[in-house]
């Protein structure tokens, strides 16, 4: 990544404009051409430096369910359970973490009842309890990763 890539990553984390030529507007702010911005953005996505670019929809405000779930999986069984959990389309992302609770994933469903069903299915398929840890309150969340 060079200075322009960093400027793009920093600028694009929020506030992409809603106008006819939004890439041209952002390109002007950071001092490059619209074509260059589009090409760089394509490269950053291809290289997985950015995992996505676009509108982020708020699942709960859509009436859906969103819930962090933790599981304690014995290490010899971890890969089998990870494959089963990842196979569910409701699992948006899943991280392995160093702790007895070693699997942490987010369930996103179209309806709140969908969460209960997905949790039951995971417990049934894997044979382990799934600990639902829904957020009760969100404190001032903002992206602050500087590239």
């Amino acid at each position, binding site marked *: 990544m060079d200075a322009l890539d960093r400027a793009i*990553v920093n600028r*694009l*984390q*929020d*506030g992409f404009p*809603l*106008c*006819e*030529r*939004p*890439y*041209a507007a952002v390109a002007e702010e950071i001092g490059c051409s*619209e074509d260059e911005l*589009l090409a760089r*953005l*394509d490269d*950053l*996505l291809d290289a*997985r*430096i*950015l*995992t*996505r*670019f*676009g*509108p*982020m*929809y*708020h*699942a709960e*405000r*859509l009436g859906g369910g969103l819930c*962090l779930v*933790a599981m304690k999986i014995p290490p010899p069984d971890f890969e089998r359970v*990870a494959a089963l*959990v990842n196979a569910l*389309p409701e*699992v*948006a*992302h*899943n991280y*392995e*973490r*160093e702790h*007895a*609770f070693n699997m*942490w*994933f987010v369930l*996103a469903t179209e309806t709140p009842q969908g969460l209960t069903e997905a949790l039951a299915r995971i417990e049934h398929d894997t044979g382990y309890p799934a*600990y639902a*840890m829904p*957020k*009760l309150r*969100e*404190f*001032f*969340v903002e*992206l*602050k*990763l500087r590239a």
Partner: protein
Amino acid sequence: METAALDALDRLILLATQRGLPLVARPYHAVAEQIGVSAEEVMARMQRMLDTGIIRRIGAVPNHYALGYTANGMTVWDVADDRVFALGSAVGQLEAVSHCYLRPRKLPEWPYNLFAMVHGHDRAEVEQKAQQIADLLGPACSARAILYSTRILKKTGLRFA
């Protein structure tokens, strides 16, 4: 939480953009063409969804690892129930914290109720940032842990059918 029903057009816009905005000079026109309405309508609907919070933001999601933030610690804290709202707000405003949530304890195995995500270039940086949180929480906090992520098993973002 307040929910907002999407009408058919909002839903078409969501389906057309949830995997990403087109990388073309006029992305909203491209979406409009795909779903058969005007670009002005697409932009007006998206602005309304931003205003009502259905769209959190329009932007990029960086890969922490690729940006050099290779140490990703989920710091978790057992904070007294009568202090956790005030202290959670203060923790969320620390520069070092990217996300901060109150969640239910799962006693006896999981005593922690406050979660704060901390990203660093190495574990020493995460621990230093976690210490800022510990200092802020003071005696209201009775137990803490840092869970480092060791592998991304899946990362697809939200998908609606």
